[in-house]
């Protein structure tokens, strides 16, 4: 009845007189629908393991930071070492509004976006003033300043963090709430993925690549680099702010110590590096990889504080282009056949 045959790069299923083809050549493997379907199964499979559900949500939140960051890196041509400042802005805005005014996640949402735009605009001149390492240094210091502020002003509850933030959803059934909120994290990640992939496939992606490669040349070719760097910085910053908004409402708590300190930034950077610099899909692989690695290493007790960065360092040096880069490199070197059209 069902016949399966293997034709060069195709796997062909014959079902009666219907025919289904599935390409098996590696360059078609990056099928986002398959990946998302797999991720969508996870919350159901682990519905009775709240700890694993929270790991999945964490991975999705990390990806929600790393995906816009992948675009930002190319779009402003600089390495932002402080994306977590915007996670903090989103988390604290949502948390403070929720605790003091009793707002739910959908009420805080627009305010968080506005705050994100505001701070994005305030910091965006940096993309034109500070070059290379200076930009990285300045952005590295920003979240640390923010952390000091949360200690200094009582309203941020620097020591303990905010708690009692309105949950993503409340319907009375804890298990169902957890699973639905988990799907929210997945939906948010997929939306981010969709937006950034679309951007990369548009002229804005081309602009970003040009700015990343040589902004001076791009400027001479007629690209208004200042404008596009600011647009890119603000949009990606708002996206990262939303990751903070989500994690505040998902976990119900938000503390500067968790998000604003260097270890968190290291994790995000590692996700981006392991995923492959400036690679959107890689960011997701990276996020899940880091979360799983961190969980696995907890069996070593306190030694994992040493092991975790050690393993990441080794990976960083051995996989220059990231895990995903191994495959990507393979793809990039496959040049199309060179046909000379006209002989001179």
């Amino acid at each position: 009845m069902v016949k399966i045959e293997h034709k060069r790069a195709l796997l062909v299923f014959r079902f009666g007189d219907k025919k289904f083809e599935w390409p098996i050549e590696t360059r078609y493997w990056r099928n986002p629908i398959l990946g998302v379907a797999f991720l969508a199964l996870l919350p159901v499979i682990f519905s009775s393991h709240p700890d694993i559900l929270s790991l999945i949500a964490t991975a999705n939140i990390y990806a929600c930071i790393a995906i816009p960051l992948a675009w930002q890196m190319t779009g402003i041509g600089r390495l932002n070492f402080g994306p977590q400042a915007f996670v903090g802005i989103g988390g604290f805005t949502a948390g403070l509004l929720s605790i003091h005014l009793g707002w739910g996640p959908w009420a805080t949402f627009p305010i968080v976006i506005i705050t994100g735009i505001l701070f994005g605009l305030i910091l965006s001149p940096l993309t034109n003033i500070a070059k290379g390492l200076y930009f990285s240094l300045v952005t590295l210091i920003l979240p640390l300043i923010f952390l000091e502020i949360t200690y200094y002003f009582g309203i941020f509850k620097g020591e303990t963090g905010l708690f009692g933030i309105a949950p993503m959803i409340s319907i009375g059934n804890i298990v169902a709430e957890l699973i639905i909120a988990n799907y929210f994290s997945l939906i948010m990640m997929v939306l981010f993925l969709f937006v950034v992939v679309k951007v990369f496939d548009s002229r804005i992606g081309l602009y970003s690549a040009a700015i990343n490669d040589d902004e001076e040349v791009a400027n001479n070719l007629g690209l208004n680099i200042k404008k596009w760097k600011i647009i890119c910085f603000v949009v990606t910053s708002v996206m990262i702010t939303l990751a903070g908004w989500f994690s505040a409402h998902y976990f119900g708590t938000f503390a500067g110590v968790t998000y604003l300190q260097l270890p968190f930034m290291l994790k995000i950077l590692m996700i981006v590096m392991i995923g492959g610099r400036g690679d959107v899909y890689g960011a997701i692989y990276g996020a899940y990889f880091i979360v799983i690695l961190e969980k696995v290493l907890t069996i070593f007790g306190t030694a994992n504080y040493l092991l975790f960065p050690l393993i990441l360092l080794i990976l960083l040096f051995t996989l220059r282009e990231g895990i995903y880069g191994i495959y990507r490199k393979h793809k990039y070197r496959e040049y199309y056949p060179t046909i000379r059209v006209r002989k001179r």
Partner: protein
Amino acid sequence: MLKLDGVTKKFEGLVAVNNVNFQIEEGEIVGLIGPNGAGKTTLMNLISGTLKPTEGRIEFNGQDISGVAPYDVCHRGISRTYQIPRPFPDMTALMNVAVGVFCGKNRPNMSLSDAMLDASHFLEFVGLFGKRNMLARDLSLFDLRALELARALATTPKFILIDEVMAGLNQSEVTIAIRLIRKIVEEFHVTIMWIEHIMKIIMEATQRVVVLQYGEVLTSGLPEVVVNDPRVIEAYLGEKIA
């Protein structure tokens, strides 16, 4: 078309370009020559907006463009190449040119595939169509020079600044490059300011020559007159002229 009026550029004490006045008319191919360090590239950076003149005025089609941002200068119709090729190394040749197609003028309604089509025409024009999907970093020097020309053309300029295209090319490549630039003028009706270190090429290919030395205009005129000027011979002292 292009008018320089007392253009001066100082780098902290060093006067790289000093009170330069000259004019280029539409349709001309003007050669700009001079020994190394004469300020040729600096002058080009001033025109293209990469650098701001310390003093003086640069006019293009009657509009003052001194101090205008580079992208704006490009939108007004001035395009350039680089002495040391500066492609976007991690992009394919086709993408490199597509950036020029998209950005050279405001083209809000152009789709990505339109731009690719346009870009491949420019690539074919310079003879790089077969290498359109190669990463720019893997191209040879000669191909990079052609790519830069294609990219400059893609912005649909009226005026192209060419900086030492011939440096590092062998004899047959030089012949092809000269033919290519002639073809550009024929088909796109652009005006060209051509910087070159080697005088022989300039003699063959241009109608008028401006000689720069220590940032100042030494002399200008027909190539065969300029090459026999004793001051020019002295400026190039020790170097074989023609």
